[in-house]
């Protein structure tokens, strides 16, 4: 080991920071990522992809290949295997056959020992297509332009929610305010691009991958080879960031890879270059949300009719689940009466959209926050003053007619943010001066864990904690360290329960042949759900601590009492507990160039209890800045079906120069069913900052903002309007 670790958290609050267990290896460059791992006789694969957005695939003419080189395609899927990836939905093909649905769809793999030869061979592959008319936007998808891509109407999923009695409201004569809010694609921009190596070892297919969800991958690819899931072993390599981009998308690489390994029986590596990674991996779903809000004579909201559509791209994958979270989040932190929500996930010929930090919630919350601020403007009120009237309270009702069980600390949090940011005084002053400056504010929450009864009915997490003869403890879970800090926080939980130093607790990168399935590293569930199981298993272990030899303890997920959910009607408690947040952002808009200078960022979050103050601060800072990038800089356009900004020179993520430090504060609000009171927080901290930024610019330029990114081009256009 390196320098000693500070174990103060054993005596003090668990949040007392420790040095992250992975910090020295990663900061010093000792950590070995997949692209640098050595394998005997390693072959390399290049993905051969569709260059057409929608076409019949007429012929793939492959040149004569030198000895030791292979072209792998759907023809190589063994008897009984399916050309389908079993993701959340089983629709995404391993290899395109007959038709292609998007630019970048996998047609084949070119495999061999020398990457220079592969590159030259790739140029000689001649693919002939017959182009069909593509649909790229939500509107084109809904209009079934060029005929259906999916089903008869391009609707991957459509859901309806109702709270109260919206029908009577909208047949009445209230004042109706309409709105349309748009959000775009977003690239994950993890530091390490996608990559994995497949091998055939001792009768099993072993995949070593940069990924979030080893068990997902096992399930996704077993059916392609018609083998049992146990015949696929997924071992997580050190993962350099993921943000949801390594939740399902790695399956799209692993599918063709296992077919290649099946045919060749040698280790095969696929590692994307950055240019490939930006051009040909899944992005955040673009969204369009329409509101019709009924206002009574006292300027009170009496009903809201909401229509959300998201662009799912060429395959469904998890779009319906993303849509659900967008719908469940589209009332943000407000308890509004008489709500009707329609949601649709639409098939188009863009690259399939998939998981990204927030998973639909950022789209729903951005839409709601902007619409609420537009209502405030229309009614001549300040955003914060208007919105706080509708804050949900303990015992309040959600859009799924569930109950908020926990204490809601929004008023206390608001007081802190207003004070720290100087929101009220600054806005009053700037308004009087006519300066193009303002402070914007947003409110948000994020339910931790899988929606509804998903943890109980689908995931059924199990964890194991063991203690060897030397009194060293190992945590066995399938959740991964991907930069977020879970390795360290999980070990802190076990160490704190057992009262032993952190150096004596071990957490290895999961391997599905070793660890039980504690579920995927998604949905802000790792600490709240899996961490709780680690805490319980450690308590169990403590009881047998003095037994001879090695001891171990296992714990299975138990749903907290009082949670009611109907997964058919979507009625009840969509989430057992929420993280809560408020973000304020101060901006100044340049009169000549419409460039925005961000002067300050203030946040207050309720995440239950922090397991490590510094790791939490890292998550807050990273999530907020990533969301500000989404809200201001990260324009990602589709031109003829291809992403136009496909390098880091053109796809603009923030640097440290673009935003000041986040002044982050927390309120403690222990959650009984989370470890040491912790709730989910990884996604929460992304959900609100884009709206706070847009609201600030909106106030500074005195124009409604209805879309992100709010870049100088948009501001210039609004100012001229």
């Amino acid at each position, binding site marked *: 080991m390196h320098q000693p670790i500070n174990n103060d958290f054993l005596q003090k609050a668990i949040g007392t920071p420790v040095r992250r267990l992975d910090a020295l290896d990663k900061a010093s460059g000792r950590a070995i990522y997949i692209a640098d791992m050595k394998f005997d006789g390693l072959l390399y694969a290049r993905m051969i992809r569709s260059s057409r957005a929608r076409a019949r695939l007429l012929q793939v003419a492959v040149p004569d290949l030198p000895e030791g080189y292979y072209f792998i395609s759907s023809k190589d899927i063994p008897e009984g295997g399916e050309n389908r990836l079993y993701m959340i939905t089983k629709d995404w093909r391993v290899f395109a056959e007959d038709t292609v649905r998007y630019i970048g769809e996998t047609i084949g793999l070119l495999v061999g020992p020398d*990457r220079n030869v592969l590159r030259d061979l790739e140029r000689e592959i001649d693919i002939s297509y017959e182009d069909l008319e593509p649909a790229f936007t939500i509107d084109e998808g809904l209009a079934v332009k060029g005929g259906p891509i999916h089903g008869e109407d391009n609707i991957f999923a459509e859901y309806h929610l109702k709270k109260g009695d919206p029908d009577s409201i909208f047949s009445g004569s209230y004042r109706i305010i309409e709105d349309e809010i748009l959000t775009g694609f977003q690239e994950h921009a993890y530091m390490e691009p996608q990559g994995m190596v497949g091998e055939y070892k001792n009768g099993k297919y072993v995949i070593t991958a940069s990924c979030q969800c080893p068990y997902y991958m096992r399930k996704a690819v077993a059916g392609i080879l018609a083998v049992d899931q146990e015949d696929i072993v997924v071992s997580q390599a050190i993962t350099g960031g993921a943000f949801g981009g390594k939740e399902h998308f790695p399956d799209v690489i692993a599918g063709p890879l296992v077919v290649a390994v099946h045919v060749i029986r040698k280790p095969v590596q696929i590692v994307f270059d950055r240019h490939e990674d930006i051009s040909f991996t899944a992005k955040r779903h673009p969204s369009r949300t329409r509101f019709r809000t009924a206002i009574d004579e006292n300027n009170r909201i009496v009903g809201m009719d909401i229509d959300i559509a998201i662009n799912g791209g060429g395959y469904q994958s998890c779009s319906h689940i993303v849509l659900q979270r967008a719908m469940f989040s589209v009332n943000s932190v407000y308890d509004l009466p008489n709500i009707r929500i329609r949601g649709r996930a639409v098939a188009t010929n863009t690259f399939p959209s998939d998981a990204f930090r927030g998973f639909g919630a950022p789209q729903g919350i951005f839409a709601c926050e902007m619409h609420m601020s537009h209502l405030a403007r229309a009614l001549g009120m300040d955003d914060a003053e208007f919105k706080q009237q509708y804050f949900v309270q303990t015992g309040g009702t959600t859009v799924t007619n569930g109950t908020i069980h926990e204490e809601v600390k929004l008023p206390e949090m608001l007081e802190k943010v207003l004070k720290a940011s100087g929101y009220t005084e600054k806005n009053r002053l700037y308004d009087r001066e006519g300066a193009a400056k303002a402070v914007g504010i947003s409110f948000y929450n994020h339910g931790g864990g899988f929606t509804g009864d998903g943890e109980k009915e689908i995931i059924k997490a199990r964890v194991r904690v063991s203690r060897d003869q030397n009194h060293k403890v190992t945590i066995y879970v399938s959740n991964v360290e991907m930069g977020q800090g879970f390795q360290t926080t999980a070990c802190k939980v076990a160490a704190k329960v057992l009262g032993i130093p952190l150096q004596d607790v071990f957490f290895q990168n999961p391997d599905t042949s070793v660890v039980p399935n504690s579920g995927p590293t998604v949905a802000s569930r790792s600490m709240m759900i899996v961490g709780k199981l680690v805490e319980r298993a450690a308590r169990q272990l403590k009881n047998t601590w003095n037994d001879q030899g090695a001891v171990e303890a296992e714990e299975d997920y138990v749903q907290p009492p009082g949670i009611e959910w109907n997964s058919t009607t979507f009625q009840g408690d969509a989430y057992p507990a929420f993280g809560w947040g408020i973000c304020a952002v101060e901006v100044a808009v340049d009169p000549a*160039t419409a460039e925005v200078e961000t002067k300050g960022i203030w946040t207050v979050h309720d995440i239950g209890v922090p397991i490590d103050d510094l790791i939490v601060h890292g998550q807050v800072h990273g999530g907020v800045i990533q969301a500000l990038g989404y809200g201001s800089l990260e324009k990602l356009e589709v031109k003829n079906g291809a992403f*136009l900004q496909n390098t880091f020179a053109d796809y603009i993520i923030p640097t440290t*120069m673009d935003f000041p430090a986040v002044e982050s504060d927390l309120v403690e609000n222990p959650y009984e069913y989370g470890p040491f009171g912790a709730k989910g927080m990884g996604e929460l901290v992304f959900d609100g900052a884009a709206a706070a930024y847009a609201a600030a610019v909106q106030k500074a330029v005195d124009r409604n903002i209805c879309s992100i990114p709010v870049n100088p081009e948009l501001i210039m256009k609004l100012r001229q309007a």
Partner: protein
Amino acid sequence: MAVSYVPATFEEAVRIRRETGAVPVAGGTDLMVRYRSPAGTLPDFPWPVMFISGLKEMKGLFLEGVELVIKAGTELAVIEHSEIVHPVLREAVRQMAAPALRNLGTLSGNICNASPAGDAVCVLYALGAEVELTSSSRMRRMPIEHFITGPGRTVLKGDELMTAVRIPLHSESASFYRKVGTRKANALSKLSCTGFITVTENRIADMRLALGAVGPVVVRSAELESQCIGMDLNHFRNYKPDLRKQFAERVKPIDDQRSTAEYRKETTLNLIDEFFMLIEKELS
């Protein structure tokens, strides 16, 4: 696969250039990116290349008479930190890319890249810089605006190497430089604007305005600039709307992945207005 050369001396570089037409690579910060190829493979140059970053004869900057000479292999970081370089050029270089790139990239490479969005190039137009081109049989020099003929196009001949940038010393009463990038650091330009104004006895003695990324090449108009010579405050104020209109006619940007034509035009005109305000301030 491209043949590559590593000349040991400048003479050898000139000879290789003549015999093979090899394209010189100094820092490679543009060429290595433009001709990148997948990981584990060699760069994908369509022509022979020669790596000249080791040639000491091609490095350095110094004053020669009324000119600053920046030799072609001089890294941007050296220019950024040199006190004999015009402050506006230093500022433009400081705002280019990131420190690591400025440690490798060269001003001459930036010029030969011939992008209308080149930040330093915009300043060089305004300073009236000339480039020096050398082959085994001759040396010639020409103004930068004659050298660059379009996006990515120059009049560099197949046997020539750019050997220096020569910048006349310029002392103005006030300067104006604004780069509008895609973000605050490590950013490419959406547009840029460089202006110099020299006033003697309350009249314009010299006025220069160069506009980047608003057309196929950097826009500078000797005709419009010379019309301003001799003007006093009132005269300039009266003439200003007309002058703005004539500049506006020369601003013809495009839509691309970094910005829109509409934004580029509007913002450029706003910056011209700011420069004109500076001129008025200097005249009063």
